[in-house]
């Protein structure tokens, strides 16, 4: 499993972001909170979409937001954001979007295993809906097949040593009850 872990800081459930820009910014903030990216990474991700259009909406309901590997990236990282109300990116087929997967990679060369694992997760077409409906961070980790990483307070230094901590992918009770971060509103519309 080459996917980086998903600490609670990298998961935001039921975000109230009202449009695609704020939704991508929430994903960027989650990557920053988990130590994968610097604060400027959000703007880089938004700029990619401004420049090239809504191509990041690569499947119905799902946006894979990312920017270039540059000095805004600290380490390979993932963030998952679900939206209380779906937003439109202006994609002709795959709107509206309920799930944003934020991605930061350190280098162009070293990321293919990670991308292959993202494909492994989402080639099962039920996963996007399952993520959108998730109410707990542990559910998200179980759907993505990753662990929470080394403890809770993994601050900005994270080092990138994805040691075998999360091999099982079962996301069993490692983090305690209060993990449904940011799920301020549930049940949509």
């Amino acid at each position, binding site marked *: 499993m080459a996917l980086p872990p998903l600490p609670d800081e990298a998961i935001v459930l039921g975000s109230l972001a009202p449009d695609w820009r704020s939704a991508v910014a929430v994903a960027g903030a989650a990557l920053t909170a988990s130590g994968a990216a610097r604060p400027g990474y959000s703007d880089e991700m938004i700029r*990619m979409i401004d*420049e*090239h*259009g*809504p*191509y*990041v909406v*690569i*499947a*119905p309901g799902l946006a*894979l937001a*990312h*920017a*270039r*590997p540059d000095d805004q990236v600290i380490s390979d990282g993932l963030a998952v954001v679900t939206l209380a109300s779906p937003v439109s990116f202006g994609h*002709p*087929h*795959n709107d509206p979007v309920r799930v944003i997967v934020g*991605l930061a*990679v350190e280098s*162009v060369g070293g*990321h*293919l295993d990670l*991308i*292959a694992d*993202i*494909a492994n997760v*989402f*080639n099962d*077409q039920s996963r996007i809906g399952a993520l959108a409906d998730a109410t707990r961070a542990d559910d998200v980790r179980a759907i993505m097949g990753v662990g929470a990483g080394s403890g809770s307070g993994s601050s900005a230094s994270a080092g990138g040593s994805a040691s075998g901590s999360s091999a099982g992918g079962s996301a069993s009770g490692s983090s305690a009850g209060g993990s449904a971060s940011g799920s301020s509103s549930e049940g949509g519309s």
Partner: protein
Amino acid sequence: MKIVTICGVGIGSSGILKVNAERVLAKLDIEADVVAADLASVQSVADDAQVILTSAEFVDAIGPTFADVIVIVNHFDLTELTEKLERALG
């Protein structure tokens, strides 16, 4: 045979397309070199490619090419990818 997947950075959506195209091609028993690239390098990377896989947003920017440009809507739908690749290569 060479197939190039294109997106803005050459990482995210083009990476997904590369990985899934390789899976489909293996299943179809077609041998091909699949390369993910960003839009800026398309002219150099794709000048000897038979097929370019990309999103609708990049078709105009790719510009004139001898390759078959195929637009993929759902990057995780191996059925869509299989049908479109079979049509282009068959």
